[in-house]
């Protein structure tokens, strides 16, 4: 933003041109003065609710004037977000007013992807969806021939419940594009996926977790806000986290496991580990000691290109700061074929220094139990035996599935055909690696219905689009954000819906009728549902209305002695469970494939002002209105590429064009660009055809233990198109 000084700009541009260019960029006045809230709330008011721009759900205090949102301020009652709202959360104030919003139900009239639609009313749209889903069930004699895809969110539980009531096993959720291998690896060792107590930690190792750009509350906030921590970042790219770290180690992509194993080697051989903790709380130490014998720092240096002495020193520093030292469990960096193994090894490094459930270490999350609202499921004879992709990976999560093997199975039509697709708050065309395959998968569908707030790349190819009210226009159920400091939050409308949109619950209530289901899981209003969820806590509902936060008194202390939920009830350095599945009982290194000469590994990542498709949102898009290819200075020179040249990035599955960002801040064998650009939907006015798409060029490899998509196994070539 601040690259060209304004005085410089003044010299180059006449004022009249400036005014012409920007006069039309004001926010259109769309809000109807007649809506209920506006009528009753002339003047200023504040409404407490929570954000939905990313996974964190930070607390908001919405400032509303005459029925229009002025600003989303931080909710001071909300401890997890530490009294802040990030750039995305702030820009969220414009989400309801976005010109690209879906404003009423749409029914396709042209070919799929032709962008020809007609307006429909809700009764008709829901009827069309119900009839088509039933038709697929009738012709396939299989309720699981309808797939349901969704991503986490407060209303997702209604969508999943509908899928269950409908009788399909095939709910495909986001974890295998996200944390599945991470959770699998950590749980195998610690019996849980723990939180890092960043607030109290003195020493933090990030294995590519870019916490100052991929914001996670409260970790990202505590990192620089509290204390003077030493931060070590291993990442092929010089991220902003790297910029704020004491030490940046540009590790070779896919070799993090070698670094972690060498740390284990040093901790054990130099007797830096916590002997009492290991003796009392762990299983399989002698086996591990023997197993890592050859994983020396000198060996790891050859794999990672990090000097052996550095690895040895970091292991020593890590042990010296224990238990207030954390090898962070977060995501990214690797996503290479050994990812679950890497996460196991990282868990072991932590366990060896005895930081489990210690202040400043890794801590088992606390939760706040809410009451579940049950319903009577129906048994359907016309159904498959099990999920479509059952048996394709070792530890498949039944409730979430695994995107890549699932999609392969749809493409093959085996073990049975899947012929209809309903999506909620998810955008597989832009988020699942190898976009061409996703589009092929959608061609196999007799019917596609999409629930979203904007014309996403997936909605673009739908038959019926059901527009959802945005998070600032609707009630959402109570939701527990577990952690070291757990909290219950919810959403209440800040403004009335601006358009003819509905919440997911209302849409599901409609579909129960039009699908003619014999059971109705949604026989309640949203307010009654929330009251039931929190009925075991006196005054909780009122507290939510008042502050959007509820925290019960007398929460247990997160630190200290707590049961370990593994098979042996100990931290498992050696896993009988893995062995019984034919897997390595201890994390074992496999060399990543070599990068062919002149080519690059492609890595994914984040900027702090975007989450996925928020690249299309006003204000955020202004910070960065296109993606650029990060390429190392020397590599660029070799290819004759200069800064800002248009380049072509090409993988085995796809390609994209974007401008080059020539920088010292990335390894010479690695390239990067941010996702959320290169959209195919003409309904995304700011990102359609701008820059390159990540899902287009990512190859679709997956990790065989958890089914996680491997986002760092794509090899690309880069060519200059023009200067």
């Amino acid at each position, binding site marked *: 933003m*601040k690259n060209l000084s*304004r005085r410089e700009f003044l010299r180059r541009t006449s004022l009249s041109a400036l005014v012409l260019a920007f006069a039309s960029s004001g926010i259109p006045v769309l809000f109807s003065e007649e809506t209920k809230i506006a009528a009753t709330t002339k003047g200023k008011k504040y409404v407490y609710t929570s954000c939905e721009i990313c996974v964190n759900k930070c607390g908001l205090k919405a400032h509303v004037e005459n029925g229009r949102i002025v600003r989303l301020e931080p909710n001071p009652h909300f401890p997890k977000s530490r009294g802040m709202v990030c750039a995305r959360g702030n820009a969220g104030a414009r989400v309801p007013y976005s010109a690209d919003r879906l404003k009423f139900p749409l029914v396709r009239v042209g070919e799929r992807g032709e962008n020809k639609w007609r307006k429909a009313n809700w009764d008709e749209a829901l009827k069309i969806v119900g009839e088509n889903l039933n038709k697929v069930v009738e012709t396939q004699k299989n309720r699981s021939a309808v797939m349901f895809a969704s991503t986490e969110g407060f209303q997702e539980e209604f969508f999943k419940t509908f899928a269950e009531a409908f009788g399909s096993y095939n709910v495909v959720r986001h974890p295998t594009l996200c944390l599945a291998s991470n959770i699998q690896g950590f749980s195998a060792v610690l019996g849980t996926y723990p939180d890092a107590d960043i607030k109290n930690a003195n020493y933090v190792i990030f294995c590519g977790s870019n916490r100052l750009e991929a914001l996670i509350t409260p970790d990202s906030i505590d990192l620089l806000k509290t204390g003077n921590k030493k931060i070590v970042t291993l990442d092929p790219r010089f991220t902003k986290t790297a910029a704020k770290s004491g030490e940046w180690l540009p590790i070779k992509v896919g070799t993090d496991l070698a670094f972690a194993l060498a740390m284990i080697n040093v901790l054990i051989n130099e007797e830096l580990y916590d002997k009492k903790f290991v003796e009392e709380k762990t299983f399989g130490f002698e086996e591990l000691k023997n197993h890592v014998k050859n994983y020396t720092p000198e060996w790891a240096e050859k794999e990672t290109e990090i000097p052996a002495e550095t690895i040895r020193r970091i292991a020593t520093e890590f042990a010296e700061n224990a238990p207030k030292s954390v090898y962070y469990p977060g995501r990214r960096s690797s996503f290479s074929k050994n990812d679950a193994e890497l996460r196991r090894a990282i868990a072991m490094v932590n366990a060896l220094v005895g930081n489990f459930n210690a202040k400043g270490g890794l801590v088992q999350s606390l939760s706040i139990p809410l009451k579940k609202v049950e319903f009577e499921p129906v048994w359907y004879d016309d159904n498959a035996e099990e999920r479509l992709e059952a048996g394709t990976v070792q530890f498949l999560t039944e409730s979430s599935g695994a995107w890549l093997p699932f999609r392969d199975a749809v493409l093959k039509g085996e073990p049975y055909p899947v012929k209809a697709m309903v999506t909620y708050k998810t955008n597989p065309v832009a988020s699942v690696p190898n976009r061409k395959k996703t589009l092929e998968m959608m061609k196999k569908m007799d019917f596609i219905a999409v629930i979203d707030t904007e014309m996403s790349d997936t909605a673009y190819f739908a038959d019926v689009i059901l527009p959802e009210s945005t998070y600032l226009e609707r009630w959402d159920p109570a939701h527990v954000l577990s952690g070291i400091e757990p909290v219950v939050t919810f959403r209440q409308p800040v403004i009335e819906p601006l358009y003819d949109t509905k919440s997911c619950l209302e849409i599901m209530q409609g579909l129960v009728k039009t699908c003619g289901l014999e059971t109705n899981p949604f026989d309640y209003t949203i307010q009654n549902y929330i009251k039931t969820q929190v009925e075991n806590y006196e005054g909780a509902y009122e507290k939510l209305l008042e502050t959007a936060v509820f925290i019960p008194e007398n929460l247990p202390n997160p630190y200290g002695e707590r049961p370990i939920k593994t098979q042996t009830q100990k931290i498992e350095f050696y896993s009988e469970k893995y062995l019984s599945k034919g897997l390595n009982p201890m994390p074992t290194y496999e060399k990543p494939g070599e990068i062919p000469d002149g080519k690059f590994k492609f890595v994914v990542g984040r900027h702090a002002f975007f989450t996925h498709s928020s690249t299309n949102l*006003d204000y955020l898009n202004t910070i960065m209105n296109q993606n650029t290819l990060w390429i190392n200075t020397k590599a660029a020179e070799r290819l004759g590429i200069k800064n800002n040249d248009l380049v072509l990035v090409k993988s085995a599955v796809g390609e994209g064009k974007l401008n080059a960002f020539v920088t010292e801040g990335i390894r010479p064998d690695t390239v990067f660009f941010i996702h959320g650009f290169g959209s195919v939907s003409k309904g995304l006015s700011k990102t359609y055809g701008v820059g390159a798409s990540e899902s287009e060029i990512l190859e679709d490899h997956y990790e065989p233990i958890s089914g996680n998509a491997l986002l760092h196994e794509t090899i690309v070539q880069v060519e200059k198109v023009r200067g």
Partner: protein
Amino acid sequence: METKKKYVMVIDTQKCFDCKACTIACKMENNVADNSQEYRNWVETGEICGTFPNLTQKFIPGQCNHCTNAPCEKVCPTSATYRNEDGLIMIDAEKCIVCKYCMVACPYDARFVSTTRHVVDKCDFCYDRIKIGELPACVQTCPPKTRTFGDLNDPNSEVSKLLKNREYKVLKPETGAEPNVFYL
């Protein structure tokens, strides 16, 4: 002019990680247009300096410095730019003729032609908020609390304590503008 209050901003650049929350919060609070030339505050993303793998990068938040000896105030031909009773440099929208002298005079490039207010606009430390005891929007929203705002005439304020106990500098001291934004 001696004033009862002496509002200052103290910025700890060590904490800033360039998330741009301050810029967007400010735009919302003060109805600043959504384009890349209009902003009352910003974070300057420094170049990545050095040679791989020995690199550094700095992030420097900036805004109007509410200078004690403000060059913009001096050059304003219509007195649209004035110092208010709390010592802040303010703009009288009625008087501003958008001559842009102040834009050229400002050492910090803090002023811009506002297409929403039709004046040469800049940061006013969210004066409407501080009058009722709220913090400026950028301070309130900042994730690591890079910015601290307060009254330097109050020895017990957070800003007084920070400037007493920590080393600090101001930007472009050589201009003699006597800025009131301090960098730790």
